[in-house]
């Protein structure tokens, strides 16, 4: 059994095209949730919030917020369906979004 860690991921939409992005350990915004930092404690989430605020000012991203996620076997998964849809794409169009572009991370929707 791999260990499950629960924490929070910082997300936003990239300003110029609206693409869903996640804040990584190196402080960049990446399209893949697997690259995201999972903040496990308040100090870490505060650091993510500060970084996001700066990047909003720098017109890189818009509408940043934290969402609940877990790390299972080294891969990150959003806990709520809304965020899972943002990390993957529409559940009704598996041919569209990150799930179709190879940027979806490890936890895909099952074929209907």
């Amino acid at each position: 059994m791999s260990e499950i860690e629960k924490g929070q991921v910082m997300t936003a939409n990239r300003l110029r095209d609206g693409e869903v992005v996640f804040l990584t350990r190196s402080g960049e915004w990446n399209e893949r949730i697997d690259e995201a930092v999972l903040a496990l404690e308040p100090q870490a989430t505060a650091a993510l919030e500060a970084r996001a605020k700066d990047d909003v000012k720098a017109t890189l991203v818009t509408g940043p917020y934290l969402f609940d996620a877990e790390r299972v076997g080294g891969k990150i998964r959003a806990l709520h369906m809304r965020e899972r849809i943002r990390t993957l794409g529409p559940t009704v169009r598996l041919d569209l979004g990150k799930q179709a572009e190879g940027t979806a991370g490890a936890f895909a929707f099952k074929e209907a």
Partner: protein
Amino acid sequence: MYRYDEFDHQFVRERTAQFRDQADRRLSGALTEDEFRPLRLMNGLYLQLHAYMLRVAIPYGTLSSRQMRQLAYIADKWDRGYGHFTTRQNIQYNWIKLEDTADILAALAEVEMHAIQTSGNCIRNVTTDHWAGAAADEISDPRPVGELLRQWSSLHPEFSYLPRKFKIAVTGAPNDRAAVKVHDIGLRLHKNDAGAIGWEVMVGGGQGRTPMIAVTVRDFLPEKELVAYIEAIMRVYNLYGRRDNKYKARIKILVHEIGAEKFKAEVEAEYARRPEQTTHVEEKELQRIAAYFAPPVFEKLSRFTPAFEEAKLLHPGFARWARNNLAAHRVDGYTIVNISLKPEGGIPGDATAEQMRLMADLAERYSHDELRVSHPQNIILPHVRKDDALAIWQALVPAELATANYGLAGDIIACPGMDYCSLATARSIPISQAISRKFADLDVQEKIGPVKINISGCINACGHHHVGHIGILGLDKKGEEFYQITLGGSSTESASIGSILGPGFAGHEVAGAIEKILTTYVKLRQPGEEFLYAYRRLGPQPFKEALYAAA
């Protein structure tokens, strides 16, 4: 055919240039998101779950084939090859980039289209009966009045910062297909015994979190007084409408809080203050606008056409489609073709660029170059010779556009829900797909008869669940999607708001629950009694028992 006038040309081009500058300033950081958001919303640009979403206005749902082809071109060039036709007779693109948006608006302007007044706290684009100018039961085409109101309200400085958004719907037929009683203002045309026409003015209807049926404030208003009278309504709303609470800011709340009689008295007092001579719309102005909607030149045909009857005998699939998807035209030998955008298991209202081009071609060839978008998310060819219906059907079949379920259980209204929308609390489309698959057998759908199943993915009710005969509302319960079922809603002339039947269901249980409701109805109905009327006669009890008692 509907067209712009020279003023529209100029202001749409100016607006596009203005938006290009605003977007550039946003991207450079000169504008903050808080500054930019209202500007992009004034141009129909939202930020949704996966990308930006652009909502394009289609006034009165009326499109030429050239415009439909341009919508297909935009879908291919700047989106993912499809678009979503909405319950506001508009189209939405789901995968738009901010940096492309000004180019898209310029492409729309080329075909006299735009995204103005599809968002924001202004008078939104006016909606009408999708069979306007074609329906057999129509007194007069409602679109000239819609256009009059559009020209009056577009960018109107007094009404650009209302307490909240404002939606007007107009019908020229006694059978209301425009849902006028659930709009902020609904207009319905009447003809009196002397043969004169006048408008019934209804105010304060709406859906959302507080659904209400509009109240009638005038029974028979002369057409030339419409603008002045509606201006009086808008002034009363602008003055007394609440701005302290977004959820209490719509005119329906004002009408409800002060009461219909008081509201009416306020409007009449405001109206009486006006200098009458200067506020009437001139007859020649009404005629100028009506000329934009001049009907096509119809051929003189007989009502009964042997070729059409023979085609139905030869092709049972065509006969079924003709039975369900064609509607009575006001001119003999013609019919209204309703193209279902609800294939079995499909996404309600979605059409690919290829499908759009096919429908444009068919409209050009067979329907006087005209298409309509309906609020129940289908596409209409309004003026088709009955003898051409077979050729149209044969062209639609391979494109998966010939589903013969118009007005039946498979013809479901659904908002984009949590698959796309940032406001949604639950998904709508998968529920619609499950129900559509459950009733895949068209024999079963025809046996059940006319029923409207409407699904919204949140309380804002874009999927019109309150006025579905069967309404489904998706909510979030402790992080899980669950669905409330309402029965008895209707958006027609006998409009009503549905009532919640009982405890909600998990997503995978909904289609089964709908099946139980409809099975109960089929068992208890009287001969020829449609679902809505059976429900109104029987009340909720037998349906409650079917759904909950056995558990």
